């Protein structure tokens, strides 16, 4: 969901093109959803249930207020009615989530569906993109996925659930690979046929794998053109409600047990233990960042290289409304997510390879937005990150500075000098071909694009904290 454009004509959010039940539009920063005729009757039914009202109150389902049809100026002509949703602070995608976040989203999805079925409502799909995070809390955003349950109806989202939640989790839990790169490439997750080829033999003996992976893939492969059962036959046979519920509950039990392979509990141990003592330098650095937030009051801050989220917490404490954190270390991100969840912070930690951010992709490359298209932070902090970009990934210093300054109008960057042990570590096994990586060049490049508001040495090795304010682009 890109930042609003300053115009009064509505524009369609491209990611919603698939849904014949309705599409999403944005106009002047507002988010609208059209409800088209085929879905209108079901929506009216769902809207009048206790489940729907309670789910909104409990913040499990995004709020929706009916607005006049004319707000869309004739866009979405098929609409029976138009509803307005609150704008999410930041839209993230499953390939930017950690294992723990994907697992949280999967369990949330199943619980939501189980509770819905108890009140005669079902979900017509199981897209992981329909779950978003506000801080550490998942929320279901596709109101029109909720439909009246017809007795005996099949779970139409079953394959999608397996592809987009279950199989990526199995990849990490049973094979030991992160789902992010594969998921980003395929966009629709991992199929039963794909994960089946990777699972170790002993895992294939389990009843759950046999059912949800092997058998599902096998049955797909027994279907032949012009033969085998068709949809009418299958729908007529149907899925009894108790079996439907048992299937959802069974998947829930299974997923709840999954843990990342080769990551024992000690790796995910309480972050407070590893941060119980803050050295003096750390305290000064925190005060510098807090001072920036208190003075500039940026509503949304991006914390690049957020680690376990200590500085995200500092920003929120100092008055920021929301922090989106990015890091490439899954262990650190899990600690950050635990921090956000346990302390109920408005902090969303996400996976990011800084030299290869998520691109715009999907149909016509407009279905899922790239990081740059979702940019719009009011403040950015990049503490002890620039050496990873310039020396770790060979990004020229000028380009690294320009990219960071381009993300937000103001922020704090920490420069780590060449003699710092962390930079020396990066250079340990490689030739030092970075003569331009100096504090003088860093400040020079920064001052081409921004005013330096404050500087402070942040360590005995000469790290430098710089607060900047980007030159006006007018």
């Amino acid at each position, binding site marked *: 969901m890109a930042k609003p454009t300053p115009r009064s004509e509505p524009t369609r959010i491209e990611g919603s093109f698939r849904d014949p039940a309705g599409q999403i539009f944005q106009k002047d920063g507002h988010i609208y959803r059209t409800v088209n005729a085929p879905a209108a009757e079901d929506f009216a039914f769902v809207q009048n249930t206790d489940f729907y009202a309670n789910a909104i109150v409990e913040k499990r389902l995004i709020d929706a207020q009916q607005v006049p049809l004319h707000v869309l100026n004739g866009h979405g002509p098929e609409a029976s009615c138009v509803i307005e949703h609150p704008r999410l602070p930041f839209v993230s995608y499953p390939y930017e989530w950690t294992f723990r976040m994907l697992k949280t989203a999967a369990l949330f999805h199943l619980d939501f569906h189980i509770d819905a079925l108890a009140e005669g409502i079902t979900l017509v799909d199981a897209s992981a993109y329909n779950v978003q995070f506000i801080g550490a809390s998942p929320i279901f955003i596709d109101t029109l996925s909720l439909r009246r349950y017809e007795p005996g109806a099949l779970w139409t989202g*079953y394959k999608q659930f397996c592809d987009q939640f279950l199989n990526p989790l199995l990849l990490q839990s049973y094979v030991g690979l992160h789902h992010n790169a594969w998921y980003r490439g395929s966009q629709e997750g991992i199929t039963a046929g794909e994960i089946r080829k990777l699972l170790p033999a002993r895992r294939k003996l389990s*009843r759950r794998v046999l059912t949800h992976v092997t*058998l*599902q893939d096998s*049955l797909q492969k027994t*279907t032949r053109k012009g033969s085998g059962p068709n949809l009418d036959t299958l729908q007529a046979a149907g899925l009894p409600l108790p079996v439907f519920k048992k299937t959802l509950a069974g998947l829930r039990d299974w997923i709840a047990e999954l843990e990342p392979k080769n990551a024992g509990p000690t790796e995910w141990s309480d972050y407070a233990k590893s941060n119980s003592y803050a050295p003096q330098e750390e305290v000064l650095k925190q005060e510098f960042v807090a001072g920036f937030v208190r003075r500039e009051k940026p509503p949304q801050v991006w914390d690049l290289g957020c680690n376990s989220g200590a500085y995200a917490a500092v920003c929120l404490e100092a008055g920021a409304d929301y922090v989106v954190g990015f890091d490439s270390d899954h262990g650190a991100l899990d600690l950050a997510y635990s921090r956000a969840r346990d302390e109920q912070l408005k902090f969303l930690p996400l996976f990011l390879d800084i030299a290869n951010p998520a691109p715009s992709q999907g149909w016509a490359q407009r279905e899922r937005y790239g990081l740059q298209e979702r940019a719009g932070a009011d403040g950015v902090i990049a503490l002890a990150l620039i050496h990873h970009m310039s020396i770790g990934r060979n990004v020229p210093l000028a380009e690294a500075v320009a990219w960071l300054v381009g993300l937000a109008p103001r922020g704090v960057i920490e420069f780590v000098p060449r003699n710092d042990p962390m930079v020396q570590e990066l250079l340990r096994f490689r030739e030092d071909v970075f003569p331009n990586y100096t504090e003088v060049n860093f400040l020079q490049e920064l001052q081409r694009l921004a005013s330096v508001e404050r500087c402070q040495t942040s360590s005995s090795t000469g790290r430098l904290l710089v607060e900047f304010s980007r030159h006006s682009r007018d």
Partner: protein
Amino acid sequence: MNLGEFVLDRLGTGAASLAGIAFLIMCWEQPAHAYLDPGAGSLILQVLMGGLAGAAVVGKVYWKNLMARFRRGGKTANTDHGETDA
């Protein structure tokens, strides 16, 4: 302990039956056809999970297919389509 006993011990009788069904179905596998909805397998599976009635419905269709194969003198049902399909 022979293989059968090991499987029963490892999985329990219910799951062993499932393994048996899976094995039989796996014998029918062939490369999935691009024309068919990739969700077909998941829908058939649900009907099978639904119990005997569902299994009977699906089983009947596969039985008919099997009989049709024999009637065609052992030719498989998919021999009349391939990469040249448009």
